[in-house]
């Protein structure tokens, strides 16, 4: 029999067994869709977590006041006032920390900002003039405050895109005055829409000189963090050590166990979050494997039952002159068509659904959630379900085709 005839026969077979064809395709579609959906959403979450860490450069380290939390009972220690102006000045000295290339003290907290009748709850952020450099931020309008403005407790404020939108809508913000804690601030810059970077969502923040923030907003004389940048990746460990020694000297601590601060490096974070993300990956892989298995068994059942059901048809075709090859070709084409359609539909549906879900997540949350298409998962899902479809579509057909025609014809 010619290939063209086999194809026609296969399509007729599919048309005749519509329910079976649709069920098989559905099985494959659901299997592949599930895998793509799970892996794509998982990847999105993973990327989100990773981007959080990578928001800070790898040369960055953070000095946090209080003892490093080792358990729930230590939690209260986090909010300590151990980091002072004196520490800031000493750490800046080359003699103390020679590998330090930049240090920025920060204070932060929630604050209500208002402009005319609009009010918005934002995260207020007191920083130094190198905040743009440290967090890789650039203003889309206006600019950051200068060192002089910090010293002069300037009332300049740089606002995030969301803040600008909420307070000013479409009109220009630079030069306008907003009120926070009854103090008037002059908008000197607006940040572009960026989404989540490092630990802060800058879209919903306002950045002012730390001096102003300490005095007029929070009324404190200490800092919440020091953000330090080492001059190179290799010198991170050295920088951490020098920072620790300097601060211990200043705080008169001899036993490192009693530190009233701790230094967190990017490496620490990566290590910690690495455990979380690898657990997440493992979880995703197992879920994908399970859904693949379930989908595979579904496809196997449908194929096995439907082809076995057609043993009599195979017997009849053989009685009328079909060779074993004719039968196998027919069922091969049928299986290829089913798994092909199912596979493509599954990939399309899976990608579309996870794209839609990522859009929904983006619109209802403030996460910088990015859609990612897991090509490897799609290929794996397709490969596995197609192989299962082919094997269990052809194996019973082959078994039936090898029988004497009368045995196949009499099969019940």
């Amino acid at each position: 029999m010619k290939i063209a005839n086999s194809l026609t026969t296969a399509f007729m077979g599919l048309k005749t067994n519509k329910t079976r064809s649709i069920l098989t395709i559905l099985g494959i579609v659901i299997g592949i869709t599930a895998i793509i959906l799970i892996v794509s959403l998982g990847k999105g979450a993973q990327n989100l977590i990773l981007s959080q860490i990578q928001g800070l450069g790898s040369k960055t380290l953070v000095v946090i006041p209080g003892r490093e939390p080792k358990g729930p009972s230590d939690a209260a220690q986090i909010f300590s006032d151990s980091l002072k102006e004196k520490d800031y000045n000493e750490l800046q000295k080359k003699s103390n920390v020679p590998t330090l290339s930049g240090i920025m003290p920060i204070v932060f907290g929630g604050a209500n900002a208002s402009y005319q009748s609009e009010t918005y709850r934002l995260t207020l952020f007191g920083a130094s003039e190198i905040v743009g450099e440290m967090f890789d931020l650039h203003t889309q309008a206006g600019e950051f405050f200068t060192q002089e403005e910090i010293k002069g407790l300037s009332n300049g404020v740089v606002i995030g895109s969301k803040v600008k939108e909420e307070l000013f809508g479409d009109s220009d913000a630079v030069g306008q005055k907003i009120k926070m804690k009854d103090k008037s601030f002059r908008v000197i810059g607006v940040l572009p829409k960026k989404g989540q970077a490092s630990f802060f969502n800058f879209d919903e923040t306002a950045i002012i000189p730390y001096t102003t923030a300490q005095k007029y907003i929070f009324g404190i004389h200490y800092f919440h963090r020091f953000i330090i940048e080492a001059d190179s990746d290799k010198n991170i460990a050295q920088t951490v050590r020098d920072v620790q020694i300097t601060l211990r000297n200043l705080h008169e601590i001899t036993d490192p166990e009693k530190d009233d601060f701790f230094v967190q490096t990017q490496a620490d974070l990566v290590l910690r979050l690495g455990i979380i993300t690898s657990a997440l990956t493992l979880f995703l892989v197992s879920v994908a494997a399970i859904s693949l298995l379930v989908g595979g068994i579904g496809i196997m059942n449908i194929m096995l039952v439907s082809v076995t059901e057609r043993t009599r048809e195979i017997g009849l075709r053989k009685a009328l002159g079909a060779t074993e090859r004719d039968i196998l070709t027919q069922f091969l084409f049928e299986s290829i068509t089913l798994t092909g359609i199912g596979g493509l539909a599954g990939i399309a549906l899976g990608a579309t659904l996870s794209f839609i879900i990522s859009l929904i997540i983006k619109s209802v949350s403030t996460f910088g959630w990015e859609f990612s298409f897991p090509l490897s998962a799609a290929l794996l899902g397709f490969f596995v379900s197609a192989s299962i479809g082919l094997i269990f579509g052809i194996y019973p057909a082959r078994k039936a085709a090898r029988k004497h025609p009368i045995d196949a014809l009499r099969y019940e």
Partner: protein
Amino acid sequence: MSLIEVKNLEKIYANEGVKTPALRGATFSIEKGEFVGIMGPSGSGKSTLLHILGFLDEPTRGEYRFDGRIMDEYSNNEKAKIRNKKMGFIFQSFNLLPKTSVLENVKLPLLYSDIKKSKWNLLAKNAIESVGLSHRIAHEPSQLSGGEKQRVAIARALVNNPEVIFADEPTGNLDSQSGKMVMEILQKLNQKKGHTIILITHETYTAEHAKRIINVRDGQVVRDETVTRQRRAQEDFIK
């Protein structure tokens, strides 16, 4: 040279260690153009015999020559080709493909033949016309009566213009009126078109439509005789 020649044909079914002999040394030959009825009660081995003659099954022992060549010498593909070109089958249970039109059902053997695709429709339509079902060409088997189904099966058996047509209890599932019509067609095929017809039945009445009756009992040929007065399906029909 006879078209069909069997010598000491034996068939033993082995099922879970239990051996059941179905044929115990059948010997006879059939010439081209004959209309033979193979008769016997159920369990006599007549169906087994037909299946072996039609290359649908294989004997355990004994010799079967089709067209002068021993069956064992044919490869599986050659057997498929012979079934396709030289044999036509009519089954008691019709064996039509469900949800497939009469035309497509009749075309089925052509799919596996060397005949050009462009001729398929004409050949199938001619075969359907010869069994008087042209008005049912687009119907599906579920829309047909039993007699009509069997006539579709006959058209399918005819479409490749085979030398021999095997009919396994073709009237077994039919009412007498439809049965007569089927027998009439078979007789016409034998007389006007020269097809060899081998008919299996357990009814003497049906068997008498043949020119020769081979009686089978317990897997052996017990009687082989020419029918003196062949029953005419047409006459019955007219009455």
